[in-house]
């Protein structure tokens, strides 16, 4: 191993370095100077994001445990951009007096959990996979309980850690069964040893599936989602809903396409049923929500169901549409959460009925939220339309027309509830709408980045084409 090999891990190394720098600042400053940590952390992460885009050589180290390819690097870059937007959005909240004591903890925990996810995505064997998963899970549960003075936040943290632990346990059990039946944990060797005739291996796959489905909030492993999203601080909710879910989707797709490709018909059937269940239940429950955070939580459950459409196809177009859709979903969801968090930070109001008549007083915020909701619903010309269309194309490529029909009907249902906030803001009348306020520069930058992303990523074909170049199918 030489320096070239170590540099293959440059995403993770830089992240850990950044976390350590923040730690040093934490120790070196006293309470009054703590606010310097925020710009330091932001700059470090911005550098990290930019450095991530530099071209990378492919390779693997640690005997195959950690490998990186262009595709994996691309996935990490997408997640980086998402986290950058989240961090920019979080600056106002983190600088509030109640949180000032713990500024550095927020950044250290975020960097650590992201590093864990990067290890998970880059894994070459199940052991590194599990290591990354656990490194990612524990800090995120601490982040969910970040608001010390709110009961709901503590509840969110407990629910998250307990259910994460259970699902990780089941996942580990599955991994141990795989080791037991195939004699190895390396992906390539496991793939050779799998057959569909061995029922223990099938059980192992089911357990693996269950563990990952928890992370992606698929039905019936979604019950933690709404309460945790509602209780956690908005920045953490954004992180959970896009980054955590996105990373889990990435590694899920890669493992299914590489390790389990022999038994593809088995997991395709499972994905079929779960996709329908997830979309339908997510949509039906979202119809009834009035709290904006719960509303976005259920909508993101339904979105995960759509992502399964790309996975079920098993083609390179399928994988490309999944990666592309996660990118689009990051911009759209962060845009929506951004507006919700700004309104929540200024006025504390999170209920949809309180958004009535928002267009009259805060037109730009209303337009931003409308654009984000349209993107989530899949309406042109924003990127959500292209993302959904490519997912449908991937599923139709393998002849899953009935599934596409059901997803289309679900899109109609989702359009109804995505129009509910639009209706509230633009059409409903209100005696006392939320008064006009100026948002701070950081929140504006974050929302503008999201809106730019949503518009550009769809209309310009370079993003999808460059993703498709690196993807592979079964």
């Amino acid at each position, binding site marked *: 191993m030489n320096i070239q090999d170590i540099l293959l891990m440059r995403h993770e190394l830089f992240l850990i370095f950044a976390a350590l720098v923040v730690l040093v600042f934490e120790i070196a400053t006293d309470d009054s100077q703590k606010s310097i940590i925020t710009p330091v952390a932001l700059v470090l992460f911005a550098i990290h994001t930019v450095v991530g885009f530099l071209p990378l050589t492919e390779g693997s180290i640690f005997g195959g445990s950690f490998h990186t390819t262009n595709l994996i690097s691309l996935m990490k870059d997408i997640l980086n951009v998402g986290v950058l937007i989240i961090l920019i959005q979080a600056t106002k909240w983190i600088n509030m007096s109640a949180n000032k004591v713990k500024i550095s903890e927020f950044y250290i925990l975020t960097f650590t959990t992201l590093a864990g996810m990067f290890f998970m995505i880059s894994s070459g064997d199940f052991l590194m996979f599990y290591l990354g998963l656990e490194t990612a899970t524990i800090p995120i549960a601490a982040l969910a309980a970040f608001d010390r003075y709110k009961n709901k936040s503590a509840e969110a943290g407990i629910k998250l850690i307990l259910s994460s632990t259970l699902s990780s346990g089941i996942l580990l059990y599955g991994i141990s069964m795989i080791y037991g039946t195939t004699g190895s944990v390396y992906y390539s060797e496991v793939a050779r040893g799998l057959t569909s005739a061995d029922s223990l291996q099938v059980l192992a796959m089911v357990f693996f599936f269950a563990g990952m489905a928890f992370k992606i909030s698929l039905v019936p492993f979604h019950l933690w989602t709404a309460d945790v999203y509602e209780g956690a601080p908005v920045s953490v909710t954004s992180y959970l809903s896009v980054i955590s879910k996105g990373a889990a989707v990435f590694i899920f797709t890669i493992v299914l396409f590489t390790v389990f490709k022999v038994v593809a018909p088995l997991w395709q059937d499972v994905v079929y049923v779960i996709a329908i269940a997830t979309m339908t239940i997510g949509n039906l429950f979202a119809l009834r929500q009035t709290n904006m955070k719960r509303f976005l939580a259920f909508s993101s459950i339904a979105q995960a169901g759509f992502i399964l459409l790309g996975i079920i196809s098993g083609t390179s177009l399928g994988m490309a549409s999944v990666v592309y859709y996660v990118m689009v979903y990051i911009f759209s969801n962060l845009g929506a959460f951004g507006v919700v968090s700004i309104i929540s930070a200024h006025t504390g109001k999170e209920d949809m009925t309180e958004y009535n008549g928002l267009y009259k007083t805060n037109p730009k915020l209303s337009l931003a939220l409308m654009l984000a909701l349209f993107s989530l619903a899949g309406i042109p010309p924003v990127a959500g*339309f292209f993302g959904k269309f490519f997912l449908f*194309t991937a599923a*139709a490529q393998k002849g899953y*027309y009935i599934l596409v029909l059901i997803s*289309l009907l679900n899109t*109609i249902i989702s*359009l*109804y509830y995505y129009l509910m906030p639009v209706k509230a803001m*633009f059409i409903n009348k209100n005696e006392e709408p939320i008064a006009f306020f100026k948002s701070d520069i950081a929140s504006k930058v974050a929302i503008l980045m999201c809106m730019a992303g949503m518009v550009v990523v769809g209309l310009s*074909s370079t993003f999808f084409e460059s993703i498709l170049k690196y993807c592979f199918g079964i």
Partner: protein
Amino acid sequence: MFVVVPVLTTLGILCTKDLKGTRIVSAIGMGIQLLMSFNLLFRYFAERKVNAAEMLFQKSYMWYESLNIHYTVGVDGIAVAMILLTSVVVIAGVFASWSTKELPREFFTFLILLSSGVFGFFISLDLFTMFLFYEVAVIPMYLLIGIWGTGPKEYSAMKLTLMLMGGSALLILGLLGIYFNSAPDGGQLTFNIIEISKVHIPIEAQRFFFPFLFVGFGVLGALFPFHTWSPDGHASAPTAVSMLHAGVLMKLGGYGCFRVAMFLLPEAAQEMGWIFLVLTTISVVYGAFGAIWQKDLKYINAYSSVSHCGMVIFALLMMNKTAMDGAILQMISHGLMTALFFALIGMIYGRTHTRNIYEMGGLMKIIPFLSVIYVIAGMASLGLPGLSGFVAEMTIFVGSFQHQDVFHRVCTIVATTSIVVTAVYILRVVGILLLGPIKNSHFEELKDASWWEKTSLLTLLIAILIIGIAPFWLSNMIQDSLTPIVTRLSILQ
């Protein structure tokens, strides 16, 4: 270009500060659009003489290479006719909305954005792009009806949006089905309409996807029983929106039916056409009878639109040249007529604040200009020779009757009875509303049409007159472009 101008107009509106600026920018923008469409018309005639290709003025830009999606545009005679229709109706709509008081900038922005979607739809030759513009045209409807509408506007807006998006959901399925079957002998899959029309798509795939496509477009074209969004939607919408929607958007459905569903899947169209023929016949008659019972002016016109748009699809399904020529003529003629009607109704409602015909009477004495135009519009609707309605309906029925077999003849006869029913409801309304004694003395102080309203109405009226008296230029243009479609369909007959 046709898409660029409305988009630029929209951006221009966003820069204006007040009502006056908004109106001027919109009027200029849409005026330019109208001039461009006239220009296109003359250039088309010139080009047609030397170039016999199917689609003229084609331009193609590669968009998503891996899926072979291009931004391809091009026109033939039918598309040129539809573009003309749209530009006339849009500018009439802009003038009809001259006095919008609430949030005028946003209103004009969404209206023109909608029109850009419509223009894009008519000029696209690539299925993906066509579908994209279709969806762009649907969504502003929700906001336009929900914010500026009247009556149960939220309910109507949501119902309209959900049903139209339901249609588009079925469309995606059909489009993907066509795409994946577009190269049955190997070669590259494509979304391009012209290329797909040269390929023979396997019959099983055709049978599966044709209903989805036809129903998907039929929802927009008010095919029974998917028309239920139409009466409430039109009644609750503001004037210009109703004009644009009934006049142009419903024609998107008819256009899509023949350009996509029938052109690309001809065998399935032959096999399953009779089912939809029955449905359209029901639309025609049901719409007409529905209009007789209504008290509300807008509902009368909405049901009348269902009936006339049903006639369009009815004629398309007859699949011979005359009938299809009549169908396109009916699209244009009815588009202009219904826009005229909705404009008039909007102006009357703005003055009397009621749409109930029993509460109004003797308007001819009070607002003569509007009343006379209303009578002329009514005559056009029931097919008086000299106006465009006659040309269209005559051609449709002659073409439909050319079929020898019992089934088609029966359908034609049933549909023809709607002429009588149309006369009943038109004349009834004219009688109650315009003639007779003045019901409400408050109305005696109503003012007649203002200059912008006159402009709007006269624009439409002149177009109706031109088509009624001298339809041959239009008819020839359409017939030339119909040849490839009819050839494809009749090879199999």
